[in-house]
């Protein structure tokens, strides 16, 4: 009974997304990159890490569609494997941030009082930090590497989720059915997980999609500052920062990699916006 109802609402949302052209474009771009990332070893024409000094800094050609870098590595293959790196890190970081942020926000909103003050003031402090500087400081402590990147981005993405969850919980918990559940003697945690949280999920999912876009921008930004993943792993921002020196001699190094970041971020933005329209029809024009 319950499952079919959920399936129903899924189809309703999907139908709304389908009607929204922007959302469809976004869905398509995101899916395209996800497929690239998952099947990277089969899609990429070359190994992203194999050096071939005879082909150093070759422009786009039939053999190397996007050209090669100074080590003779195939840029197309590095762009494809870079999707794997960025999507993987962003997805993990946003998931961690969403789960922990929503949980803390929900606790704050549901129980109120002291816990509310404590948790939300802590997030206020985190929000007062300029976000990229916070990530830089965290990486300076933990060192570079992909998992530390996940943590840094998760930590500074958390407050937004907590705020959304809190305000949703505050408004949902006053609904009659929640009060009815309390009257029936269900404990606070049961009520929180059973009734309040599921009803707050829509805005969290929208935020998650938009946050993916921000996370990917942050990953490449940190990579660009030299605080990204370790070599020889392919990562767009890191590759772009190395490409800077060669732009006059080999402009192709700067074009395709940047375009990949731009496209996927745009995909998530379109997708998140479309989702927003589909889930909140009354806010369609915002």
């Amino acid at each position, binding site marked *: 009974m319950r499952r079919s109802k959920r399936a129903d609402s899924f189809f309703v949302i999907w139908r709304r997304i389908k009607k929204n052209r922007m959302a469809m474009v976004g869905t398509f771009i995101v899916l395209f990159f996800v497929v690239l990332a998952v099947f990277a070893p089969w899609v990429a024409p070359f190994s992203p890490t194999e050096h071939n000094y005879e082909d150093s800094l070759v422009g786009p050609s039939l053999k190397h569609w996007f050209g090669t870098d100074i080590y003779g590595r195939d840029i197309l293959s590095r762009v494809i494997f870079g999707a794997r790196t960025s999507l993987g890190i962003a997805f993990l970081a946003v998931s961690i941030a969403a789960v922990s942020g929503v949980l803390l926000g929900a606790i704050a909103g549901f129980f109120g009082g002291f816990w509310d003050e404590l948790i939300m003031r802590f997030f206020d*402090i985190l929000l*007062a930090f300029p976000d*990229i*500087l916070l990530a830089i400081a965290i990486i300076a402590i933990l060192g570079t590497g992909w998992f530390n990147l996940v943590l840094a981005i998760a930590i500074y993405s958390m407050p937004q989720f907590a705020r959304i969850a809190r305000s949703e919980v505050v408004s949902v918990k006053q609904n009659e059915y929640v009060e009815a559940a309390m009257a029936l003697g269900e404990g606070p945690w049961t009520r929180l997980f059973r009734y309040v949280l599921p009803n707050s999920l829509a805005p969290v999912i929208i935020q998650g999609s938009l946050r993916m876009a921000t996370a990917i921008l942050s990953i490449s*930004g940190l990579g660009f500052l030299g605080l990204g993943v370790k070599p020889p792993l392919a990562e767009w921002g890191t590759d772009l920062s190395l490409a800077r020196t060669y732009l006059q001699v080999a402009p192709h190094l700067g074009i395709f990699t940047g375009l990949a970041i731009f496209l996927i971020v745009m995909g998530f933005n379109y997708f998140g916006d479309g989702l927003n329209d589909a889930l909140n029809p009354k806010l369609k024009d915002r």
Partner: protein
Amino acid sequence: MRNFVVRRLMLLIPIFLGVSILIFLLMHFIPGDPARLLAGEGATPQDILNIRQKFGLDQPLITQYFLFMKGVFTGELISLRTEAGVMEEILPRFWNTIQLSLLSILISATLGIGLGIVAAVKRNSWVDNLVMGFSLFGVSMPVFWLGILLILLFAVVFDWLPAGGKGGFEHIILPAITLGMATSAIIARMTRASMLQVLSQDFIRTADAFGIRRNKIIYKYALKNAMIPVVTIVGIQFGYMLGGAVLTESVFGWPGLGRLIVDSIFSRDYTVVQVGIMVIAMTFVFVNLGVDITYAFLDPRIRRR
């Protein structure tokens, strides 16, 4: 109204303390001994010991925190790296960031509000589509890539503008555009949405029914009301710019505060990082407060919350 402002100001105190403690702890968790670094290549253990004593780095953490806070209020803190006063290091750099952010917010607010109005008025036309397209383009563009492309185009290919550094007015143009791109997109979207909402409201329809000219409706009645949320977003974005200019500053070699802080993290110049981040965080909080107060002033319903 006064109560509202006082309450909001009081709330700043815990945030101020929280930020100072958090950044202090963060900096001390970062591995690396600043004394060793300051001593440079070829220093003796005695040199390092002396430096540690000189800056109180041999004291327990809690003492160091109180020394630091005391220094913040007396203004006696000095940079570990240059041994000049911390504020002497920070203020000129902060001023550079403010200059960049001001020009940037000016460009993006003008552009964003203009485009937003046009899009709302010509709703669903090709102009509207173009503006919405631009706004998504703007928020999706990685700043450093935009910076690279602008340098490639305007400095390398055409040689119209300098590639970086700080000098005359021509040096600030590319960084300001780069920094403002995303913001102008956000402002354009906000303006459009807000205009559409106001235009659909009853009093506008009434005015329309009274036969008042459409231009007058749009620019006299609708715009005024639509600007309230736009002012908010401009303020918040300006706050972000002050702290989030690190990437732009690093692409263009702009000597702003963001880069000073990043460089200081790497050279373990604790005092500059701590005070620098507090300056940015507090500015951000104050700008937000200013925005909230303006908002409350414009929209009395908020004050009661």
